[in-house]
């Protein structure tokens, strides 16, 4: 309870729900199988202050976040002090950038300093003033044009280049979520793009190496991330999600939104197949009196068209970048939208590759949370945190660093 050092919390303020995942990073020593994340707590609340992945009502959102955090604290029996905060929204964009650095040392050997410099160069990007960087992820190094170098230190070369994938978004909108969390006496360790978090939770290293696409169909947005050769090649956000499906149904079937939501969950399907032909369902009011008859075929056709469009837009985007041919591991779906029956069957002909529901990877703990596509992002956020924490452990802390430097200094004198 009192030792919070290895407690990692992922907080996702989504459009349909707020979800806090408490994870405990296991210290398995050198055994890689034991190093991982153990989920020990989960808290969630219906979200009311978010549309299309972005805050529209801070007060309500604050209340929802508080409920989720409290529930997670109770379940995990820990005190949450800091969170890894997931962000999304139509304003978030990803692009690739390249940094160049000439190796100047006499023997032409690439040193750690050269690597640091080239990464710094790659991070110097011309963004619009109102935007800021969410992630800058290293892809591959190039030494004198030689492709695919993962660690150039110690190699000989005269010109070092690096490709970075940069995810950026509107600063004010990103700050809104951060301020909301900070206002509740919680620290924000880092903000993480939701799509990235989901992909971390789902993909194994092997799948990243083969090339994979993760599509997270959330309530308000659909986030997607492309991995090839083990690195992130592309990220994107489509501000269309499950909310749109419900809204389409409400409009098309002429029922209230809440009823449309319910119909979607009970009778929805991604395929308007023959089985639905002519079937109807009667909706009743709270007294059991029939109100309206809804045609299941129409319901499914409306849903199918909307979902089809989402996949089509993603396929178009990837096609433009020529990435569709590199996804040998296939497509992995998560998010609440992945629950729609037959959705993989709908997506397969559009993306023209195997589509499956993602399974969380190298995470243990609460079985109830691990199998659910909705919690993938939250789990991924915690996993992101655990990676960061491990990196930090590897690096000497500030005090240790000063001590060491002083020691060296004293020794020398």
């Amino acid at each position, binding site marked *: 309870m009192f030792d919070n050092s290895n407690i990692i919390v992922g907080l996702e303020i989504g459009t349909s729900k707020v979800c806090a995942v408490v994870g405990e990073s296991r210290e398995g020593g050198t055994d890689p199988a034991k190093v991982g994340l153990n989920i020990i707590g989960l808290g969630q609340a219906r979200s009311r202050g978010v*549309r*299309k992945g972005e805050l*529209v009502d801070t007060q309500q959102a604050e209340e929802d976040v508080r409920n989720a955090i409290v529930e997670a604290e109770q379940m995990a029996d820990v005190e949450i002090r800091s969170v890894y905060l997931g962000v999304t929204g*139509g304003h978030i964009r990803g692009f690739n950038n390249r940094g160049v650095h000439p190796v100047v040392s006499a023997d032409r050997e690439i040193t750690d300093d050269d690597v640091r410099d080239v990464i710094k160069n790659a991070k110097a990007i011309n963004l619009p003033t109102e935007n800021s960087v969410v992630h800058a992820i290293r892809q591959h190094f190039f030494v004198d044009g030689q492709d695919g170098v993962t660690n150039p230190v110690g190699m000989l070369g005269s010109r070092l280049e690096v490709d970075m994938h940069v995810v950026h978004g509107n600063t004010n909108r990103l700050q809104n979520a951060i301020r909301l969390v900070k206002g509740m006496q919680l620290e924000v360790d880092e903000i993480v793009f939701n799509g990235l978090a989901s992909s971390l939770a789902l993909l194994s290293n092997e799948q990243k190496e083969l090339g994979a696409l993760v599509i997270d169909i959330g309530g308000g947005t659909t986030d997607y991330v492309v991995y090839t050769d083990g690195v992130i090649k592309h990220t994107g956000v*489509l*501000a*269309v999600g499950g*909310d*749109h499906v419900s*809204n*389409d149904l*409400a*409009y*098309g079937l002429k029922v209230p*939104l809440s009823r449309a939501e319910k119909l979607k969950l009970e009778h929805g399907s991604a395929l308007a197949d023959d089985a639905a032909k002519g079937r109807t369902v009667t909706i009743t009011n709270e007294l059991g009196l029939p109100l309206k008859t809804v*045609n299941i075929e*129409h319901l499914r*056709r*409306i849903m199918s*068209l*909307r979902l*089809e*469009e989402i996949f*089509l*837009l993603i*396929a*178009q985007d990837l*096609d433009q970048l020529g990435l569709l041919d590199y996804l040998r591991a296939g497509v992995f779906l998560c998010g609440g939208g992945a629950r729609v029956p037959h959705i993989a069957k709908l997506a397969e002909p559009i993306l023209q590759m195997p589509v499956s529901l993602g399974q969380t990877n190298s995470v243990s703990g609460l079985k109830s949370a691990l199998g659910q596509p909705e919690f993938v992002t939250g789990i991924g956020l915690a996993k992101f945190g655990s990676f960061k924490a491990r990196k930090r452990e590897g690096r000497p802390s500030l005090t240790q660093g000063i001590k060491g430097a002083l020691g060296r200094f004293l020794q020398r004198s």
Partner: protein
Amino acid sequence: MPLVIWILAFFGHQGFVIRHWQCAKNMKAKIQDGTKVSVVPRSRTIRIFGVGGAGVQLLDLVIGGEFTGASFAVIDTDGPSLAASPAPVKIQLETKLLRGLGTGGDPERGRALAEEQFSTLKTACEGATVVFILAGLGGGAGSGISSVLARAAKESGALVLAFVTLPFACEGNRRQQQAQQGLGELKAVADGVICLPNQKTFKLIDENTSVLDTFRITGGLLLESVRGVWRLLTRRGLIQIHFDDLRALVHDRHSESVFACIEAAGVARSREIVEKLLAHPLLDEGRALAEADAVLVSLMGGKDLTMTEVNRVMEQISRQCEQAQIIMGAAVDETLKNRLCVTVIAAKNAVSNAEAPETFECADVSASRSAGRRHVAAIPTHQPSPPPLNLEQREQMITRRGGHVRKPGSKMLQAQLPLAIISKGRFDKSEPTIHKGEDLDIPTYIRRGVALN
């Protein structure tokens, strides 16, 4: 004194006749040339007429296109516009009364002139199996002459397809009415009318498009459609669309056909084609397909055209128009390389169709207002067999359409009227999600024009 006038008039007339006789002779020579060379593989003579100022300009574009084997002719009342045209055959309809000033925007004058020269027009159409008429409706010459020309062509045994533009809304009520009336007359006579309301091209242009460019765009669209039909008729097909298929589709239906010709290249071209098709302004974003009762699809690709692509495009199209009879053809044209070109003609039956309401209002108004003038339009010299409608029936038909519009099929279309305000429900107040100009917050099925019935 009266004698002098008579003599003058006689000579004037003589001069006129002689000029036209020469014209006709010229044309006959041309036609013979055409048959000798026989560039058109299926030995079909296609003659393309540009009628009126706009028609002449459209024909300029067409002549610049790849229409080998067609013969071209322009008809106008205005001398200077004819003189500027590169068309080999120029027919100027003129009498002393006009003093070389054209029709002055009055279709009645254009029509009267054309009726007067009916035999000349008929000679001009002789020998052609298919006659294309290009015209801009709304003015005097285009609206007045084209229907008479269509009748002349039909009497000489040709299939008549008219490609016409309707004026912009800002051009004023009178032109709009004249255009609607001209369109109605043309529909009654021609085998098929492909009609491009200029107003629709507003969707294609932005703030900075100049007037010149705008007219170039409308011209380009019309040219596309001419080219599409042209390809349909002349290129050898793997799955052939016979000439009779086209004829069956447009012949005697007295229908308005809408039309789209789309090209795409690259790996995902079949998908792109379908998308472009569904977003095509002439097809009312795919709505026209849903309303059509007969659809003709012609796919044309390079040697690499795959069956899967053909299948994918056809699947999507047939999904769009479930009620329609679909005729499809596929052909290989080596010059297309990796491009895929699809031509779609959707015909709706004029009586049972439901057109955009504003068009009907116009047609209605023009019909009732100009009922008096109308007789000039339909002077039934000797009624040809294909349009077996006399004046009364025709008028009845036009007026009845106005009254009928709300009954048949209107239930199905209610959600698709362009003027209906589509509520975005819970996204009403949030920032819209615009992707390539499409508002994704509007339900997909509405944007795609999928009818739920």
